[in-house]
């Protein structure tokens, strides 16, 4: 893409596929291709948005970026080296994850302070006192009051919990944050706060984001580039501005039209989406010029 050739590629997917085997009864085996020959490049300081409907393979893709799932074929490269070359601990210092559901991603039996300090503990960084000090700093970085340090996760609101999740993800100073629908479980009023926090942190720590979402408003607000996924493939990949102005793929157009707005009289969008229409079947990979 134009203008970003100077920045190094930090995360690259090369022709990555992931096939799940499903067992249906003792003799029947089905396979589901969750991610189908996807290639992507993420440059330093990029915010790559991945949109698509439920089941389009977004979460599988983000799990493969984190090394939680191995691709069936293809390579995931971090700084030009395959992910399998990294141990789980080394990987953890480079790439971290922000979860969709801030309720289940915090261990209900631990205090906020120990949750944030946990990555440091796992990696054996600092003494107990130093880790506590760092956890308090991180609380401040994500805009939480110091008094929540000894609270249990159950005593915090959804937005506060998501701030804790972000603080934990930042504890090891990662370069890349993969955010899986970071605001979809939150109140509308809190969503903007969390997104702005993520944007502020990006400039403060020079972070690179991969942001998975099906909320187009979030994508438009946050990202520099957008990849549209449909049935496990990337059907369109473009800079954020252009995709909202001139969507090329028919599925992207549908996606844009089906977004709800709060404009008066807007009503529920009426989208005619015939899945049997040849245009939506087994999408082709995007033109190579986009990569």
């Amino acid at each position: 893409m134009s203008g970003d050739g100077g920045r190094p590629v930090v995360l690259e997917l090369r022709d990555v596929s992931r096939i799940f085997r499903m067992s249906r009864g003792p003799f029947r085996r089905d396979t589901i291709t969750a991610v189908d020959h996807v290639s992507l490049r993420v440059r330093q300081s990029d915010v790559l948005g991945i949109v698509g409907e439920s089941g389009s393979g977004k979460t599988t893709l983000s799990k493969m970026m984190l090394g939680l799932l191995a691709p069936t074929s293809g390579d995931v490269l971090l700084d030009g080296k395959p992910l399998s070359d990294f141990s789980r601990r080394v990987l953890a210092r480079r790439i971290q994850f922000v979860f969709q559901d801030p309720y289940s991603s915090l261990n209900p039996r631990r205090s906020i302070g120990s949750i944030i300090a946990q990555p440091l503990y796992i990696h054996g960084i600092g003494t107990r006192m130093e880790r506590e000090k760092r956890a308090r700093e991180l609380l401040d970085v994500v805009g939480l009051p110091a008094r929540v340090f000894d609270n249990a996760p159950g005593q915090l609101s959804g937005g506060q919990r998501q701030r804790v999740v972000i603080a934990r993800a930042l504890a090891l100073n990662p370069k890349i944050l993969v955010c899986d629908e970071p605001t979809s479980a939150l109140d509308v009023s809190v969503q903007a706060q969390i997104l702005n926090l993520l944007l502020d942190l990006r400039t403060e720590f020079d972070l690179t984001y991969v942001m998975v979402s099906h909320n187009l408003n979030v994508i438009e607000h946050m990202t520099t580039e957008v990849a549209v996924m449909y049935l496990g493939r990337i059907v369109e990949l473009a800079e954020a501005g252009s995709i909202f102005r001139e969507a090329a793929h028919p599925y992207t157009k549908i996606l844009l039209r089906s977004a709800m707005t709060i404009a008066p009289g807007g009503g529920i969008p009426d989208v005619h989406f015939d899945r049997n229409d040849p245009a939506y079947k087994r999408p082709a990979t995007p033109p190579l010029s986009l990569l």
Partner: protein
Amino acid sequence: MRAQTETIAGERQTRHLPRWMRHTGLTAGAVILVIIVLMGVFAPLLAPQDPYEQNLLARIVPPVWYEGGSWEHPLGTDHLGRDYLARLLYGARVSVFIGVTVAFVSGIIGTVLGVTAGYFGGKTDVVISFLITARLALPVILVALAIVALFGSSLTVVVSVLGLLLWDRFALVMRATTQQIRDADFVMAAKVQGASTLQIIVQEILPNVATNLTVVATLEIAQAIVLEAALSFLGLGVPPPLPSWGLMLAEGKSFILFDPWLITIPGVLLFGLVLAINLVGDGLRDVTAPDSRN
């Protein structure tokens, strides 16, 4: 800031305390349990006489409230003239010791197996589930009888046999609860942070299954005590002259028609102890139910 944190913590405590006290079953069970445990612990101080000292001239003296009873032996004497109260107090020691030790041993075995099966799933789960099924197919009393017949009866043998046999409920419950939380996001979060499997199990899984573990442990303590009584009644539990409530029942059974108190007193105590433990177990389960957490 600090003061505010303290009030939050304080509020949490006052909210929990009445709930604990309000649970009648839990409170009643805990009181009975504490009394029996104190009886066992302070047996040497409380016992009026040596529980092993025989006096054939004072055999089967009835308790003080029957005709012919005296304060010298408040609960009478058994068929060898040993003081019944002293034997009951020392018997509480044996029962509680066996219950707790057996639950501890089987708890460790069951938790290791259950958490392993639940966390790893797949083939590991198949193998461990088979072990659990095989164990459930073994009749405990029969196996215990066979082993005691082979090795002779002693406290150690009884504790090890029961400990090695009673882990099935631990394993089943731990497996199920581990399966429930193994896929929780906070477990995945620990993985993303680079935690080792052992770290995940110890720091993420175990704290979340601890309450279930406590509940199962109390129920297993009760079961171990009843089984010890049954084995002792059959003459294959703790060897005489060690006083155990089950053994006292066995020794008293020939006098059931003429001196029924020889059976009823240890019987009632055994019933009370097992009831108390079960009340505590049920109460703990109610009080630590998920809705009262967080």
